[in-house]
C-alpha cells in the first residue's frame, strides 16, 4: 500500500469522525481516490496575486472544470473515454487497458491484476499525474508532471507528444541518473496498460489546462463553461458551450493520434563517424555559433554555461517573484529548482545511451527544457559528429592534454 492513500485515508477518517452527521454525502470523508484540481494553473490564469481562488465567481468556474473533466474522463477508479467528433481512440487508448491500470490495487476473479498505476507509480507521480506523490519533494529531478502533455525523451519533433514506443522505452529502461526506475520486471502487457494510463492522465491534464485557459481568455468573471439550465432558456448558447468543450477535447487528443506516424527519421552516420577526425569535427562544432552547445553546456561541457534558467513546469510558479512564488507553494507546488544543462563528462544520458537516442535529443531538443533543437542549418552528418564528440567526453580527462584514444567502440544503432 502506498503512503499517499494511507495518509489520505487517515485524514478522511478523522474528518468523518468530526462530521458523522454529514457523512452520508460523499466528500473527502469517502476513502475514494480523487483527482486534484490544477490550482497552480488556475491561480496563474484566473486571479491576480493575493486574490482568492475560492471567491464565488471563480469557484463556480473551477467546479465546472472538475465536473466536465469527470464527465469526459471519469475518476481515478472509473476512467472513461468520451465520444468526440472525428476522434477514434482505439489506436491510442482502450478502456479495458485503462481499467487495468486504474483503481485500487487488486485482482478480479479471472486473476487479472488492476491498480497497476497505484501500485508502481503513484508515490512519485501522484494519483492525478501531477508529479506530486508523497516521495516527490525528496527527488531531484522531480517526477514528471504529465498534465502539460510534455515529455522529454521521445522520437518526435518538439511540438508533438511521444509515440507509444517512446513511452514503452521509458518504462522498460527507466531514466538513468534520476529516480525513475526501470519496469522491466513487469510484462509487456502490463507496461502497455501503464503507457496508456500515462497518456490518459496527460490528456486529462491537458484538457483541464485548456478549459482553464478558455475561462481565463474568453469568459467573463462568473460566466460558465457549461450551464445545463440554459438548455431551455438559451439553446443557442447552450449548444455553443457544448461545442466549445468538445472542440477543446478533440484538439487535445488529435496530436496524440498523429505522433506515431511523425517519428523523426534517423539517417545512417557518415563513413568516418566516430573516428578521431569525426570527434575533432564534433568538438569544433560544439563551440561554433552554428550549434551553440557550449553556451549552455559550458566550455568544458560540465553543464555550467547557463545555470540560472528554469524549465516550463517551474516557470509557471514565477520563481523570480517571491510573493507570487509563496502563493504557488501554498497551493502545493514544489520548491523551484534551476534546470541545469547536462554535465556531458559523466556519460549518463537520461533519454537513453544508444546513438539513435542522442540523435533525437540533439536533432529535436528536449521539450519543456531550454535544450533546443539543432539549427535547421546543421546537417545530419554534423549532428553525428557532435554525437561522436559528446560520447568521447567522459573518456577525455580535462586536466590532461587532449589525446583521443579510440575510446568508444562503435556501437550498433
Amino acid at each position, binding site marked *: 500500500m502506498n503512503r499517499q492513500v494511507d495518509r489520505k485515508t487517515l485524514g478522511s477518517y478523522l474528518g468523518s469522525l*468530526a462530521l458523522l452527521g454529514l457523512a452520508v454525502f460523499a466528500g*473527502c470523508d469517502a476513502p475514494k481516490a480523487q483527482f486534484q484540481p490544477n490550482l497552480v494553473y488556475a491561480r496563474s490564469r484566473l486571479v491576480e496575486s493575493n486574490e482568492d481562488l475560492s471567491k464565488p465567481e471563480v*469557484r463556480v468556474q473551477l467546479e465546472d472544470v472538475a465536473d466536465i473533466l469527470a464527465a469526459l474522463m471519469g475518476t481515478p477508479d472509473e476512467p472513461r473515454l468520451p465520444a468526440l*467528433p472525428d476522434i477514434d481512440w482505439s489506436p491510442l487508448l482502450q478502456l479495458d487497458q485503462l481499467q487495468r491500470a486504474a483503481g485500487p490495487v487488486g485482482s478480479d476473479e479471472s486473476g487479472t491484476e488492476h491498480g497497476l498505476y497505484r501500485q508502481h507509480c503513484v508515490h512519485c507521480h501522484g494519483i492525478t499525474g501531477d508529479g*506530486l506523490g508523497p516521495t516527490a519533494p525528496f527527488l531531484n529531478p522531480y517526477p514528471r508532471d504529465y498534465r502539460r502533455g510534455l515529455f522529454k525523451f521521445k522520437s518526435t519533433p518538439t511540438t508533438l507528444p511521444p509515440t507509444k514506443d517512446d513511452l514503452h522505452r521509458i518504462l522498460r529502461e527507466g531514466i538513468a541518473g534520476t529516480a525513475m526506475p526501470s519496469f522491466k520486471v513487469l510484462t509487456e502487457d502490463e507496461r502497455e496498460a501503464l503507457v496508456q494510463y500515462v497518456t490518459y492522465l496527460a490528456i486529462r491534464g491537458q484538457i483541464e489546462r485548456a478549459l482553464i*485557459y478558455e475561462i481565463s481568455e474568453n469568459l467573463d468573471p462568473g460566466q460558465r463553461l457549461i450551464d445545463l439550465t440554459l438548455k431551455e432558456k438559451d439553446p443557442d448558447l447552450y449548444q455553443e458551450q457544448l461545442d466549445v468543450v468538445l472542440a477543446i477535447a478533440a*484538439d487535445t487528443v488529435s496530436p496524440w493520434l498523429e505522433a506515431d506516424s511523425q517519428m523523426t527519421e534517423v539517417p545512417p552516420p557518415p563513413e568516418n563517424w566516430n573516428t578521431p577526425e569525426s570527434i575533432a569535427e564534433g568538438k569544433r562544432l560544439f563551440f561554433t*555559433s552554428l550549434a551553440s552547445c557550449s553556451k549552455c553546456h559550458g566550455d568544458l561541457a560540465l553543464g555550467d554555461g547557463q545555470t540560472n*534558467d528554469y524549465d516550463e513546469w517551474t516557470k509557471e510558479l514565477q520563481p523570480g517573484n517571491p510573493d507570487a512564488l509563496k502563493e504557488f507553494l501554498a497551493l502545493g507546488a514544489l520548491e523551484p529548482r534551476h534546470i541545469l544543462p547536462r554535465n556531458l563528462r559523466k556519460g549518463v544520458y537520461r533519454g537513453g545511451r544508444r546513438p539513435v537516442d542522442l540523435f533525437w535529443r540533439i536533432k529535436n531538443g528536449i521539450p519543456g527544457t531550454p535544450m*533546443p533543437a539543432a539549427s535547421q542549418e546543421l546537417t545530419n552528418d554534423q549532428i553525428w559528429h557532435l554525437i561522436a564528440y559528446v560520447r568521447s567526453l567522459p573518456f577525455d580527462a580535462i586536466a590532461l592534454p587532449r589525446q583521443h584514444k579510440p575510446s568508444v567502440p562503435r556501437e550498433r544503432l
Partner: protein
Amino acid sequence: MRIRALVGSGCCVLGAAILAVAGCGPGAGPKIQVDLDRADAIRSALRRAAGAGEEEGGEEEVAEPTGFATLVGRIRFEGTVPAPKQLRVDKDVEVCRPGGRPVLSQEFVVNSENRGLKNVLIFVSSKIPSGDPKWEHESYLAQREALLTGDKAFDQKACRFLAHVYAMRSTQTLEIINSDPVGHNVKIDPPTTKVASTNVTVPANGGKATWKPGGESNVPVSVACNIHPWMSAYILPRDNPFFAVTDENGGFRIDYVPAGVELEFRVWQERIGFVSGSVTLNGQTIKLSKGRIKKVKLEPDQETSWEFVFTDALFD
C-alpha cells in the same frame, strides 16, 4: 453543489486542525469537489452534442460582408508613465549591451512626444471563414500561405527581438533570423495545442529558422531565448488576417476589413493582457471586458478612425 462545498471545506478545516498534515489534498486553496450527478448530466449532453454535429450539418445562414472597409486609429496614453524596468544582461555583454548602456524592458513603451502607446494588439476575434474571397480581399488571399521574409521576418539584433509584439496568420510561415554575431535559440510555448511549439537554435550572423503556427490563438504566444533569458517577445497567430500592432506613434491600420457584418474586436497589451476597464474611444467612455469591442459594423469603402485614450488607471 452547495453541499459539496460545505463538506469539502468542513472536512479539511477539521482534518487540518487535528492532523496538521494535508487532510484531503496538498496545500491550501479551495477544495473543489466533483459533483458526480452533474458530471453524468454533462456527459449525456456532450454525448448528444458530439453525435449531433455531423448529422445536422446544415449550417445556419450567416450574414455575408457587403464589401471591405478600412480601420485606422491611434492609442494615446494619459497619466504617469511608469519607469521602464532595467533588464539583467549578464551574458555576451559586448553584443547584448552595446556601448554598456542599460537595456530596458519593452513591456510598456510610450512615445514621449505624442504619447502614442506602442505594441498594443488589435484584432478581429469573431469566428469568420478563412481564405474565403467573400471575406478576404485578394491581397490577403495571395499572402495566405506566404513565407514572411525580408522586412516581415522575425529578426533579432543586440539580443533583442526587433519586433517585440508581432502578429501573423496561422497559415503563414515565419522566417526567424539572427543578425547577431552570437548564437540564439528561439523557444515558442503556446498555451494551446492548436499552435505548434518550437525551440530551435538559430546560428549567428544571419542564421535562419522557420516556424509555422498551424493554428490560431486568442492570446499572443511568448517567445524566449534560453541562451539569453532576458530576451522576450510575443507573436499572435490568427486564422484570419484582420489584426494590427500599434507602432511607435500608437498608430494602427487594418485594411479590407469585412464590412456590413457585425464583428468583435479585442485589444491586448503586454502588461495587462486583454484590456479591461474604462477607455475613451473617439471622445466617449466605453468599458471593455477582456478587451472586447463588440458589435462593430463598418461601412463598405469607408475609412473608420478609432482614437483611443488609455489612462494609467487601467494599468494599476
